[in-house]
Structure formats: C-alpha cells, structure tokens
C-alpha cells in the first residue's frame, strides 16, 4: 500500500468544541495531518472540514473510521485525487526594493496571483492554487527575502455532480455511509 497524501472531507456539526474533538483524536491516535481547515457549509448547523492526511490506505481507513466514531461527525469522504479540486490560499510578504519590485510583480503574474499590498520595503501577494503551486511560488520568491507566509490549508471539492460529504435530509437515518460493510470490503 502506497504511502501518500489523502484528502478527506468531513461534514460535522457546527458546534463549539468540535474542532477540539477532531484534532484531539488525530493527536492521540498518532495520525499525521498536514493540514486541516474548517468552515460553514451550505447548511447553517453543519460545517465542512478538509483534512490532508499522510499515510497508506490502511491508515486512511482507520482515520475515516475514527472520525465516524466521533458523535459530531456526520459524513466523511475520501476524495479521489483525479476527480477533485483542491485549493489553498496563501498570503506572502516579501522584501522588495525599487530595483526588484517589478521582477516580483512579474513572477506573481506568471502564477496568476495578486499583489494586495505594496509598502516602502515590502509587497504582499495573495496566491491561490494547489499546494505544490504555492510551494513552488514561495521557493521562487525566497531570493528576495520572505518576511512572512500565511497559508490557509487545503479546501477540497469533487468535480461534476458528486457532492463531497453530502448533506442529506435523511442523514440521521440509515443512509449514513459509515457503517456499511462495503466500505471495508474494498480492503480485502
């Protein structure tokens, strides 16, 4: 089983303490997550979270099951890399002088990022993309002197009709996907 990055999306109750329950579970079970984001979903009482998890398929299966064990977690979807959109935003503050500012702007344009602040000695750039694009962007800016990087962590969604961690009015009924043995059959 290949070790790699998996992107999981979970629908969770939008309540105080939920983030603590989830991050606590990751910590105590020793799962590695490289990013975790949370925000309101299309339904007021539910939030969507995106996790980028490191591990093999068995680890991801355990992560999924352990997430489901938390009472506040409603649905979990392991996103198929080829069929999903993963985006992260970053703000990058770099040192800039009159001599090199235009070069920085040029690089920003190539990455289709936005200059959102220009100061006497710095510029702040807003960039959106998948993680590797942001990684590469930051590397290119390093020679100018990076003052500060703020990344949001990944958010993700599946392409086309499919809805990740779908909100289903029937969600408290038998339609939950978690306890279905077919999930585990995949693992045979």
């Amino acid at each position: 089983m290949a070790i790699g990055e998996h992107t999981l999306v979970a629908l969770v109750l939008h309540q105080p303490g939920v983030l603590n329950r989830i991050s606590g579970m990751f910590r105590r079970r020793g799962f590695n997550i490289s990013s975790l984001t949370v925000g309101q979903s299309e339904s007021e009482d539910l939030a969507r979270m995106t996790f980028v998890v490191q591990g093999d398929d068995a680890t991801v299966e355990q992560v999924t099951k352990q997430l489901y064990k938390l009472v506040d977690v409603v649905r979990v979807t392991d996103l198929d890399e080829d069929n999903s959109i993963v985006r992260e935003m970053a703000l990058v503050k770099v040192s800039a002088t009159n001599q090199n500012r235009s070069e920085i702007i040029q690089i920003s344009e190539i990455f289709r990022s936005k200059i959102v602040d220009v100061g006497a000695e710095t510029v702040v750039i807003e960039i959106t993309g998948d993680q590797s694009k942001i990684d590469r962007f930051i590397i290119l800016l390093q020679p100018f002197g990076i003052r500060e990087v703020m990344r949001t962590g990944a958010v993700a969604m599946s392409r086309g009709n499919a809805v990740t961690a779908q909100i289903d009015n029937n969600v408290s009924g038998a339609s939950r996907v978690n306890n279905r043995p077919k999930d585990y059959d995949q693992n045979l």
Partner: protein
Amino acid sequence: MKLTGAQMVCESLIREGVDTMFGIPGGAILPLYQTFHQYPQLKHILVRHEQGAAMAADGYYRVTGKVGVAMATSGPGATNLVTGLATAQMDSTAIVAITGQVSRGAIGKDAFQECDITGVTLPVTKHNYLVMDIHDIPRVIKEAFYLAKSGRPGPVLVDIPKDLFTEEAEFIYPETVEIPGYNPTLEGNMSQIKKAASLINSAKKPVILSGHGAVLSRAFDEVKDLAERAQIPVITTLLGISSFPETHVLSLGMPGMHGVAYASMALDQADLIVSLGARFDDRVTGKLSSFAPNAKIIHIDIDPSVIGQNVRTQVPLVGDVKSVLQTLIPQVKQNNHEDWVQHIEEMRINHPSLRLKEKDNLTQQYIIKKISDITQGGAVVVTGVGQHQMWTAQYYTFSQPNSWVTSGGLGTMGFEVPAAMGAQVGKPDSVVWSICGDGGFQMTLSDLATIVENKLPIKFAIMNNHFLGMVRQWQHLFYEDTFTATQYSGNPDFVKLAEAYGIHSFRVTEKSEVDNAITDAMEHDGPVLIDFMVDPEENVYPMIPPGESVLEIVEEPTEEPTWR
C-alpha cells in the same frame, strides 16, 4: 410544567429508568443534591472517593445492563472520576457521569474548583457535554443515556454549571433522540453474513473467539448455538469470560499472554477464527506477524474501527453480535469437526495448563480453585489487576453467563472494591466475590465504609503476597530479580482494618484452612474479608512474553526461564 434545572435532571434520570446513583456532593453540584429529597425513587449511594463512584457505576452496568450513574462536583470531584471513566471507555461499559461546574459567568476564569472537565475527559469518554442552556438539559440527558448504552457502549459525561440548577424553565422531555452523526449498525450485512457462513461451513479447524461484545450484547444462547451446531471450540478473551459456560466440553478458556496453552495453540493452528466482539488486543495476539498464520478471520463487531485495526480480516461484519449470530446461525451447517476437536482434546491432555501444583504452600491458584468449587462456578466474581486477576481468569470455572467483572482494557488496579460494590448493588441477591490484590485493595479500600453502610454482603478475598505481584513477576523474569519498588512491607493488618470498619474478618495461612474459611464467608450474612497469606514467589504461567508468538510459550517452567 416549570422546573428548576436540578429538578429537570432528576425528572430526566427517572425517565431513563435510573434508580441508583453513586457520588459525592460539593459546592457546584449542591443545588442538584438538595433536590434529591423530592425524588425518593432516586437512591443516592454516598461513596468515599469519586473514583469509586465511577467504578461502582461500571460494576453496576456490567452485571445489570442498566446504565450506571456517577455524580461529582466540579474540579477535584470531577477529576477523581477520570480513572473510572477511562476504565469504562476501554471496556465499553455504559456510565453516565453528571458533574457540577462553576457558574456560567465564572467559566474560563480559573474560578474556585473550576476544571475544564469536558476537555479533560475528551479522550476517555464516548462523548461529553457542557450544558450552557437550561432548555438543553432534558435533551442532553436523553442523548447521554442513549449514547452510553447503544452501539458500542461507553461512558458519557454531562457537565452542568451551578447556576443552571436553580434557573427555571418549561420541562419537555424529548421522545426520541436525533443525533445526525450517530447511527450504529446493528444488523449485519446479508452478503457478508453469507460469506461468513460459507467460510464456517468449509472450515476444517475453526475456533470461536468470544469477546466482551458477546457479553455486552447478551449473545449467550447464540454463542452456544453456533458452537454446538458446528462443533466449534470456543476461546474466550479476558473480557469474553462468562460469555460461554466453562463447564462446556467445547470451552477452551482464555488465550494469550497468560492464557491456557491449548487455547493459544488452537488459535495458532486454526484455519478460521470467528471473532465475536473481540478486538485482537496485543495481550491476545502477541506478535502480530506470526499470529494465527493459517487462519481466515470473520470479524463481527459493532464498532467498525476495530475491524482491520490489528489483524487482516477476510469477512468484516459490522453489527450487534447477537443480531448477527441470529441471522448467521441458520445458514451454518451442522458439523462435528471430529479430527479437530479430537486434536484439541489431545492438546488439552498434553498441555495441562491448569493442573494444581503439589505444593504445601498456600497458593492463589489453590484458593481460587476452592472458591470456584464451593460456589459451583456460580458467583459474580470481581477482581483487581495483576497476578490474582490472571489466576482468577484461569482457575475459576465460570458456569453462569455474565458473571465476571474485571478491568481488561485499561488494567486498573483498585477496581476490585468499588466495582464489587456496584455489582452487589445491581444484583443484591447474587453472591459477589471480590478477589483482591493487596496492592489494588489499598487503592480503593475507603469504600469499605460505603459497603458497610449499605449492607452489601460482598466476600473479599485478599491475596496478600506483600508485593505488587505482577510487577514483581516481570522484575523476576525480565530484570534479573531487581525488585525495585514492588515490596509492600508495611501492609496494615487487614483483619483489624476490616474489623475497624465493622466487617467480619479472619486470616488464613494454611492450605488446610481454606475450605472452612470460604464456607464460613458464604454462611455469614454480611460482608466478609479474608486475608489469605499467600506464597509471594509464585509466578503466573503459562506465559507468552510480550511481543512474542505462541511458540515462545512457557507452560510450567521446571527451571525459571530467562528472557532477559
């Protein structure tokens, strides 16, 4: 109907069928306690330490199947519950703990006796709540009981700020619970059940591995049906003990680190393991890479996360053990597995793990065997953790379903006193024996007072070896007899101690006195404490050293083994 928050708690508890609660009051929970006199149907048992409240609630649940209730005040009262909650969490037992919290306005300000108990207990509860609105009290309590007892049971804590107890609001008790993220699967998937049946029908060397899930789902008849129908030997994990009568010819007993050799060997040689609510803990499997190398595994469990967690599974089957077995059994063909059963019988003869040594010394094995004989394997038996626990698991022949109460997953010393208390409260007419280590007993003996106050006729057998015996055994086997910090040279006179509490008590030093002592204890109406002065140097065998396979088993050393 307008009620105070405190009245709401009581009304809710009554609606959940609660009649007994264990706890200790204090400032933050006092307004709740002060309403108890309005509800005489709620019996509150005042314990001596909150750990005892949680463990008594646990023992109560284990023997009755009714959710145990523990109560404590904020801060230290609540933190004292933690070990009991963790014990319950590891063994999947249903407790609802209700704690008082400082008033809402004081939360987060390091107020007197403030502790973030929902934060503290996050990893040791199935779920917990901090109630911040009086209107939520009924719903939260209903949910707490539902979560505690349904699915894979577990402890749930409800923290209620003091000012909510005295506020008033309309009391409406919800009829149903709606928790969108919680919907345990009880019935097995049909196609998986079919696969399981066909594996069982074609197996040549099948075994049943019966765990706590079989006990918790009360699948006693079903386990027996399955075993008898296809003549499949039954191995019971530490917590699976008393899911299947040990007097049955197909019963092999406990496998693993201190299991009987033939049970571990049968697991090792099996071509099919039908696991019923067991989770393949490392004490059972030993070295995972060489565990049951030829076996396919049908893993039946209500908690999907334990399936595939430690061992590879051919047929994962999520559901309640009892319900799954009821569907599965009709699809299982009658069989006799003659060669396999015969082979196991031979192993039983060639590897007699439970033969008593011809020794003049007073040994724990001998005492426990005698208690087993005299009670005809029919008592409710509670233990602490350590050597005496393993010997009880080995030498007590459990003939009655669900009659074994022990801390398996967390291995919590001190469980023996309060859990026995809860068990006796839950089953007032049963004979309850508490087999105690002198170490564990001293961790929680303060509840002897509670036991006397409540006239609980528990029979305590202290296996007094003046050592933290199990640790001493490890020091002997793995640390060249360096006995650091394991000797209890200053034990009190337990007989005098018991007498000080008003408990009938006596000491036994000779083998010849054992029978009479046990019979006397049984004939005495109230609680009894026997101080058995046992051989301190006995070690528990068989033993598979940690992280090793069954091939490394030491059954009964003539010379002491060296694993150093």
